[in-house]
């Protein structure tokens, strides 16, 4: 409550003309300032972390050395080798995968109106994992082939769920339940695949399944970056429609939204984003789950900023990579760190959501 707002009175007619418009303007301005501040701050944090991940390691560099090398401003062969050759691909992978997971996760959560509806849980990641592990175990493939298999698996899983959930349109609740079922089914088959694997392939498959930003090849990164340039602005552009879909199908249709078409478009965008992220880095858990809620904390409740969630995702993944590779005594895959941080959050979410009764 601010001073702009007149107190509740018995005779509301005495309200000064234009006072409401002024209060409204003040509210909107406050929100815009907060969104701008948070997004700018997040961008600064992401850039900072991006540079920092390239500074630390057995060969320490200054921020200036990193920046000049990345931007091709100076010529220093040994620095260039470490930065552009070794560290930039990993940093770029953490950045792009984080952006993709964060934006995809928040679109899923808003679209399916459930904070638990992150792509980790609704079978898309499981589809990618099954395809990738099958490729590694049965066909001994690696590199880009695994990436493409995972991409195909994720998209196939999403299509399967969409078809199964369709009944005069797709309702959020059905999609989530079917997604969980599909995830469990795929995970079962993935487990079976692992038991059939030779030791070498099993190790490779397990490593892929943990998720790591350090395993991305150049071609994979190019693919993901190019896709992000198209999909992220598209998602941001669609967010106006997403805000109407959040009000339920009836309200959205009454407000003039083409509900099924918009939902398919948004789901398609979010599925492609998460599929590419998983294809490049493996199933890195919890980033997609927590990015949206953290962004909402920063921007204000129900603001649903997709750009902010993408930035939160990138910041989380860059931090997780820093912790996994540099702060722990033995370097671990990134997915282990995000899992260790994310699991308690999930438990907290389940406990509080049930208490509010807002989970379904």
């Amino acid at each position, binding site marked *: *409550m*601010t001073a702009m*707002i*007149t*107190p*509740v009175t018995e005779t*509301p007619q005495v*309200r000064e003309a*234009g*006072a*409401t*418009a002024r*209060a*409204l*303007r003040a*509210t*909107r301005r406050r*929100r815009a300032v907060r969104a701008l501040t948070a997004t700018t701050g997040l961008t600064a944090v992401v850039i900072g972390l991006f540079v920092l991940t390239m500074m630390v390691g057995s060969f320490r560099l200054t921020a200036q050395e990193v920046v000049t090398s990345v931007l091709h401003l100076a010529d220093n062969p040994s620095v260039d080798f470490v930065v552009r050759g070794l560290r930039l691909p990993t940093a770029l992978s953490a950045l792009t995968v984080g952006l993709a997971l964060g934006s995809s996760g928040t679109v899923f959560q*808003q679209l399916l*109106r459930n*904070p638990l509806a992150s792509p980790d849980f609704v079978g898309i990641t499981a589809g990618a994992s099954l395809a990738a592990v099958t490729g590694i175990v049965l066909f001994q493939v690696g590199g880009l082939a695994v990436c493409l298999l995972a991409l195909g698996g994720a998209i196939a899983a999403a299509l399967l769920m969409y078809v199964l959930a369709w009944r*005069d349109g797709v309702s959020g609740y059905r999609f989530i339940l079917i997604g969980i079922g599909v995830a469990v089914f795929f995970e079962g088959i993935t487990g079976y695949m692992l038991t059939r694997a030779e030791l070498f392939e099993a190790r490779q498959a397990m490593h892929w399944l943990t998720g790591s930003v350090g395993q991305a090849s150049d071609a994979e990164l190019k693919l993901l970056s190019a896709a992000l340039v198209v999909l992220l602005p598209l998602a941001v*552009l669609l967010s*106006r429609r997403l*805000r*109407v879909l*959040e*009000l*339920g199908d*009836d*309200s959205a*249709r*009454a*407000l*003039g*939204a*083409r509900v099924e078409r918009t939902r398919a478009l948004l789901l398609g965008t979010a599925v492609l984003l998460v599929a590419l992220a998983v294809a490049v880095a493996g199933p890195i858990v919890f980033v997609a789950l927590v990015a949206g809620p953290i962004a*909402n904390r920063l921007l*204000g*409740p*129900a*603001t*649903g900023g997709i750009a902010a969630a993408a930035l939160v995702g990138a910041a989380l993944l860059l931090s997780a990579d820093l912790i996994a590779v540099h702060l722990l005594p033995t370097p671990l895959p990134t997915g282990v760190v995000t899992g260790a941080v994310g699991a308690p959050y999930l438990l907290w979410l389940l406990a509080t959501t049930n208490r*509010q009764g*807002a989970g379904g």
Partner: protein
Amino acid sequence: MTRLRAEGLTLGYDAQPIVRDLDVTVLDGKVTAIVGANACGKSTLLRGLARLLRPRAGTVVLDGRAMAELSTLEVAKVLGLLPQAPVAPDGITVADLVSRGRYPHQGWFRTWTDRDHDAVARALDATDTADLVDRPLRQLSGGQRQRVWVAMALAQDTDLLLLDEPTTFLDINHQVELLRLLRKLNGESGKTIVAVLHDINLASRYCDHIIAMAGGAIVAEGSPAEVITAELIAKVFGLECVVLTDPVAGTPIIVPAG
């Protein structure tokens, strides 16, 4: 000319139609109540009129054109609807929610204009919710929350407004308050209002026109004085009752007999 009417309308969700071959004309500039027993098809009819349900047969005509030929955005600029159980994202504030009612008036890239601003401010003032703009919807009472939803529908700035059971879950005071609000909106801006209502006495008191439905068909329609008779209530609700005259407004009220 009437702006909204339906001809030979058949509506349903599964194989079995709920509303069958129904003709209806919504009176311009009036407050109309649709009444009837549970599962008589009154909400289905409202959803059909608001093109939330595609007709199996027949057409809904809006401003002389078949609704199926109009884009959803064109319809949304003329016809607003408050659904029975609207949902809102967790933590949403009143200002945010009511502002979302401006969706049909905004394009892909068009930003917020003064017209949007004024429409939202007017909607808040009309529903007496201006003091709540910064409050989360979750924290409001049932009556306040329903007024905020009406405000969102008003921000849409349509000449026709349909409401599906807007008084359900409200206590009697808030029911009356909401119906008075609808009357006020009708009186001040000549808005055409159609509401599905459960309470016959409130419908009789606050509405100009009553459409009584049973078994997916219209049984009677007209002014409250014409429609509300002991025979009709027996036919529509299966309730034996006595019709009295409201000592305050002079409209008919029903009292269960025996």
